[in-house]
């Protein structure tokens, strides 16, 4: 059976971890094949547990950088065993892959220039709004337009850095994105005080670790390990390390304490998709 990941790991003594080059503090590269971030550390911890469980003296962890386009296919075709990036758990994806229990709940918000006077999405009618190609925020924005009858000029950046540059250079009046991405971009900018995150939460998205579907043994192993981290309070400490303390490579801090929703996910571990959050 191809989807017996535990057996595969045991046989080969190696596991391939899908990581992201630049997903804010969740998963990012330090260069030279090294990766770091909240989810990378969570996965590292989880894999140590798995190693112990399998009785392996040694476990080689290979990093495979993935992009939002290829992460799902790569997990499906076996090139990646466990993806530790910033993948939103939603119903469509659940058809293709499996998610671990939610470790982080993302809130989509708005970054603007501090002196712009904008404080809410409703002030953006007729303005240019930047967001990043290949993210769910584009959909969120579109929904908002339809629901509230407002009209944004959307402009899609190639990646978060470009989207932020659109805001910085004045080509866009706002940047709508996951708040941890916004916080990271602002923290790394030359003058963080020029920007601020404002307005209501536009959408709430559970972010989780991904692996192959129909592999209950592996899912159980991963989930148990994570739940262990939640229960022991270790996960909260790790969160603090990445989202509140200064982090590499720039040694700036995001100043983003755990949200109510994130804490709730830790309190009652679950792998519910995004759609279930919206219903509330």
């Amino acid at each position: 059976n191809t989807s017996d990941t535990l057996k595969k790991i045991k046989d080969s003594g190696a596991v391939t971890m899908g990581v992201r080059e630049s997903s804010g503090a969740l998963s990012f590269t330090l260069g030279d094949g090294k990766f770091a971030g909240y989810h990378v550390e969570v996965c590292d911890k989880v894999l140590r547990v798995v190693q112990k469980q399998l009785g392996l003296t040694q476990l080689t962890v290979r990093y495979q950088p993935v992009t939002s386009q290829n992460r799902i296919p790569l997990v499906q075709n076996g090139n990646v065993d466990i993806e530790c990036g910033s993948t939103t758990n939603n119903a469509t994806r659940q058809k293709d892959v499996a998610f671990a229990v939610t470790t982080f709940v993302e809130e989509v918000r708005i970054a603007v220039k501090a002196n712009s006077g904008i404080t809410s999405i409703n002030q953006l009618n007729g303005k240019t709004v930047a967001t990043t190609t290949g993210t769910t925020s584009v959909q969120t924005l579109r929904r908002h337009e339809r629901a509230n009858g407002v009209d944004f000029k959307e402009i899609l950046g190639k990646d978060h850095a470009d989207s932020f540059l659109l805001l910085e250079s004045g080509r866009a009046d706002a940047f709508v994105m996951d708040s941890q991405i916004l916080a990271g971009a602002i923290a790394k900018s030359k003058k963080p005080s020029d920007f601020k995150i404002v307005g209501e939460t536009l959408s709430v998205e559970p972010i989780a670790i991904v692996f192959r579907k129909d592999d209950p043994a592996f899912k159980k192993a991963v989930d148990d390990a994570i739940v262990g981290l939640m229960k022991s309070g270790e996960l909260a400490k790790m969160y603090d390390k990445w989202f509140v303390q200064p982090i590499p490579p720039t040694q700036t801090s995001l100043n983003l304490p755990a949200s109510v929703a994130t804490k709730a996910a830790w309190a009652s571990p679950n792998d519910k998709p995004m759609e279930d959050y919206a219903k509330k």
Partner: protein
Amino acid sequence: MNLDFGFVTAEYLTVFVLKGLGFSLLLTLVAMVGGIALGTVLALMRLSKQPVLSWPAAGYVNLMRSVPLVMVILWFFLLLPSGVYQQIGGQWADDNKVAISAFITFTCFEAAYYSEIIRAGIQSVPQGQSQAGAALGMRPSQTMRLVVLPQAFRNMLPVLLTQTIILFQDTSLVYAIGASDLLHAFDYARTNLGRSIEGNLLAAAVYFAICFSLSLAVRQLQKRIQVIR
């Protein structure tokens, strides 16, 4: 515009720029050697009078030339199942999937471009030359190997190298499968260090310096070849 190049440290240069440059050069080299070899085969197939050889070659070349390279890179990486790497080079290949996929993709893609250049090069050798070879009793394969190809390659060397400079720039597209090439080093400044403009200015300068030197070298070579002729 206030610029801040503070991120350009010795560590940044070695870990990112040199490593990336190394990969870009390696990929260029592999794709050049492999592409020219495969391109020669394709060119010979295309010039063959046998439709069973010329048609598939023409189809392959036209297909590759009509699809963006990024798409080809994505397709090769997605469609090559993980088991294949084990077949190619065992553990080592498994550890270097991205690089191997890039090597294979670029070789196959560039072969289409090289084959067009090589075809033109072969056609630039006057027919009298192959007739002279045949008249001396050489078999067609000997004539091709000893008479036509050496001249063809000499004639097209500058064009082949110019295509290789383009190839070097194209290696930046491996970002699509998460490989770390030279451009990635500057992209890192953009995406992870918050220095977009500086990163791109640096990229422009470094690429220009490298490619311009190469193109000067090619021009020098071209002059030398013209003298021999």
